[in-house]
């Protein structure tokens, strides 16, 4: 959530480059966190596999769509997700 605005505002990347670059930042950090989770507890495989499949389909679709949408549309959609996520934490 923070990575994309930092890349666009502080480092001057355009919207599409920010979203793509943000993934490269998040992947190693997530691997570290995931390692800690796996080391400290069990994960329900029955949920993990269907969710992973859904995420992969959505993720690839999103990555392909990124090239076809206007920057303004991407930025608005992302800010909407941020607002929904923020409200989610408040209620």
């Amino acid at each position, binding site marked *: *959530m923070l990575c994309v605005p930092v890349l666009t505002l502080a480092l001057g990347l355009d919207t599409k480059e920010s979203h793509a670059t943000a993934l490269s930042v998040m992947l190693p*950090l997530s691997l570290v966190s995931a390692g800690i989770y796996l080391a400290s507890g069990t994960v329900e495989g029955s949920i993990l596999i269907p969710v992973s499949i859904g995420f992969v389909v959505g993720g690839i679709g999103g990555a392909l769509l990124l090239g076809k949408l206007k920057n303004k549309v991407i930025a608005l959609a992302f800010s909407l997700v941020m607002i929904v996520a923020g409200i989610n934490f408040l209620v």
Partner: protein
Amino acid sequence: MGGGVLLIPILTVVLSVAQKSAQAVNLLAFIPMSVLALVVHLKNKRVKWRSVGYIIVPAVFFSCGGSLLALSVSPGLLGTCYGVFLSLLGVSQAVVALKSKE
């Protein structure tokens, strides 16, 4: 995490999965997804590696610091602060997006 905006409420509220399990699944499922999405982005040459370096080093420091801080703050307060911050950030980003020409 940002990606869990829909998934975590669906798992916890609709499917009655425990919060920690939902978070773990969200995190783990993110990995194969991001690897494959990244392949698409790399093919389209959208990843700027120099920027990755500028972000990832401070990100590691702030993550560690943030995690330690989070342990000493009440979960309720943490959630509220994060919710307010994220909502404000979302609104400001929407304003910037609406004002932009492309």
